[in-house]
């Protein structure tokens, strides 16, 4: 879509840029207060996953609507190694990267919806959505 905000993610400093853009767009979509921090935190987790596991990728952000309610869609896309066991990766405390294993399950709790499409050797796309109250 033409009105996507795209943030290339290849280094940790891009993680900061992605969450700042996310916060800005979420405010434009009508989110406020703790929701802005919650959305930015979820973006931080999936952007960190890109840097850690795939080295590089991108975050796409856009405003969308569900039954007239505005919201934000966050797509984190990489062409990295893919996730060998997706079911495990969505469980708390599972990590192959030496982290806390909270990235994906944590982001799922922070957002309203989270979907993962992954293929070994091809990459991973995480799509998250959150709608205003």
């Amino acid at each position: 879509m033409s009105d996507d905000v795209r943030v290339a993610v290849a280094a940790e400093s891009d993680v900061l840029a992605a969450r700042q853009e996310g916060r800005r767009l979420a405010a434009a979509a009508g989110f406020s207060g703790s929701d802005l921090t919650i959305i930015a935190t979820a973006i931080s987790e999936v952007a960190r996953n890109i840097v850690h596991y795939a080295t590089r990728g991108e975050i796409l952000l856009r405003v969308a609507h569900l039954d007239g309610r505005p919201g934000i869609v966050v797509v984190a896309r990489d062409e990295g190694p893919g996730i060998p066991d997706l079911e495990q990766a969505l469980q708390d405390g599972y990590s192959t990267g030496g982290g806390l294993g909270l990235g994906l399950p944590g982001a799922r709790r922070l957002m309203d919806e989270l979907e993962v499409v992954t293929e070994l050797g091809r990459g991973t796309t995480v799509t998250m959505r959150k709608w205003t109250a």
Partner: protein
Amino acid sequence: MTVPILKQGDHLIASVQSALSDAELTDFADELAERVGRFRSRGVVIDVSAVDLLDSFATRTLRTIALVSRLRGAEAVIVGIQPDVAFAMVQLGLSFEGVTTALDLEEGLAYLRRPKEGDLGVR
């Protein structure tokens, strides 16, 4: 220095600025551990009131800093976690497990200055 560390008597006060990079956070960990030894500090307050987001990496690093300080002989208190940040941390599944937290700098210093077992006049 990206994280100012002030010495106040037996204590150190470190004020973490917003949006610190991972490298800056790691430098801060080294600097604080070194100063605890140099100043023979007994307590450390880590003030995060200017921080607008704590994700899993930042939380784990700050927790490590606090636990390292304790192993070096200085009790550590993390203060000033903003309400929005606290909400997001809880939903993400994060906590500063094993580390004392307090509302603000004043409460943190009061906690460090509380009478302790072994002090003169305290049983």
